[in-house]
């Protein structure tokens, strides 16, 4: 039995419906919302601002600090206990690495740019939605950027290479199960700044999946740009 039809009826390379909005948190220096299917990410940027504790300060450059959090009621099943977990710590780190290549914080020594990502509802792909929202929020904050960053999970479900997996697909157990590959892409160059994988995939399918991620991230990039323009372009 091959994976002939996706659980939610999408084409194998199709993204879920997307909504994006910039400037949703007035208190923040920059903010954005990115929703893909039932996964919603809010991102807020504060800074550059003074970095505490002081020993973390770098006199050569400002630093980027990401904080990813699932709201307690946003999980697939039981309540998620508030407070950091090993998982969220790792996500904070990979989010920072995914975003830092487009920033230049050398003009802000001893400072920090804080990115906070909160998820009110989730159906897989949360770190990718978080990165995509964070990139828009950084742009909204007026930080100098070389490019945006767009992210999506690709992978394999059964015998099919797919984009934008949902929970039910991640849990697929037949014919080799599922492979989940979160990828962040710099849309202009196609370079990759986030890459993780769990599952099992052949090198040739991996290459196919990454090429699919590039294409899909460029689709997301168009939506990011449109959302940013909606806030900043003055209507005639």
């Amino acid at each position, binding site marked *: 039995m091959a994976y002939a039809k996706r659980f939610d009826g999408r084409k194998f390379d199709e993204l879920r419906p997307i909504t994006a909005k910039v400037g*949703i*948190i*007035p*208190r*923040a220096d920059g*903010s954005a919302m990115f929703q893909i299917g*039932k996964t*919603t990410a*809010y*991102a*807020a940027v*504060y800074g550059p*601002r003074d970095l505490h504790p002081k020993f973390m300060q770098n006199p050569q450059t400002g630093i980027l600090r990401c*904080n990813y*959090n699932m*709201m*307690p*009621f*946003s*999980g*697939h*099943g*039981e*309540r998620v206990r*508030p*407070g*950091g977990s090993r998982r969220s710590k790792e996500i904070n780190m990979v989010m920072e690495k995914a975003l830092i290549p487009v920033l230049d914080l050398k003009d802000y020594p001893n400072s920090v740019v*804080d990115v*906070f*990502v*909160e998820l*009110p*509802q*989730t*159906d897989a792909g949360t770190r990718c939605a978080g990165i995509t929202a964070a990139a828009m929020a950084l742009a909204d904050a007026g930080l100098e950027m070389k490019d945006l960053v767009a992210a999506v999970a690709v992978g394999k479900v059964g015998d099919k290479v797919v984009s934008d997996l949902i929970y039910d697909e991640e849990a697929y157990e037949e014919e080799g199960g599922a492979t989940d590959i979160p990828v962040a892409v710099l849309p202009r160059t196609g370079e990759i700044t986030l890459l993780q994988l769990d599952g099992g995939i052949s090198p040739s399918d991996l290459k196919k999946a990454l090429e699919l991620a590039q294409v899909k991230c460029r689709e997301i990039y168009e939506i990011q740009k449109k959302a940013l323009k909606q806030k900043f372009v003055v209507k005639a």
Partner: protein
Amino acid sequence: MNNEQKKHLITYLANGTRYDGRGLLEWRPIHVETGVSQSAEGSARVRVGKTDIMAGVKLALEKPYGDTPDQGNLMVNAELYPLSSPKFETGPPGEQAIELARVIDRGIREAKTIDVKKLCLKSGEKVWSVSVDIVTLNDDGDLMDAGALAALAALQAARFPGVKEGIVDYGERTSTPIPIDMHPVTVTVYLIDKYFVVDPLPEEEEAADARLTIAVDEHGMVRALQKGGAEKLTIDQIDKMVGIAVKKAPELRKLIK
């Protein structure tokens, strides 16, 4: 806030107006939306002006407490996210978050909002536990009243998940709501100099000498109180503040009923 700024604010209040043009006992526009998180059994988002707050309800099956074997459990928690204000930090809840959660919890609990006996499946063995999490998206003042409204709206919107062989099936959502008997709402009245103000902006919260949070049920009964702020209050002032809350509460209740 320094003395000059406070004097300036008081001059406004003496003229019967606020920085945003409102009257002293006037709320900003309130917008209540439910079903904002499909992951939660119930959820709501309340916007009061630019203040933006969410509440989500999760339901789980648990063993009841020994002293209340035939009652379900209720827990209210609040998180002041650093995403919502430069003043909030990451880490475990601080004083303000804990006070917010506990005062809202008391209002809901003391008004007997939920008939906890109806949350019992098997006495001494299995009861529903109701967790309400209040989280902030944008702090522009009056988190307490907005949070209490969001919590009640989320409870009203909640539907039980399915149960298969004694285990919760979160994939299934029934059409059964939580048994809600009462609708307490929370009004916080601030005292700035000699003026009473509701729905404060952050600068008014900072300037306030004292505040009194009052949970009022639909019979006009006071169900919870919390005095805050460094200044003292007279019985006469408390009486006036409670009077304001009882008068204002139906305005808020109307938004969720």
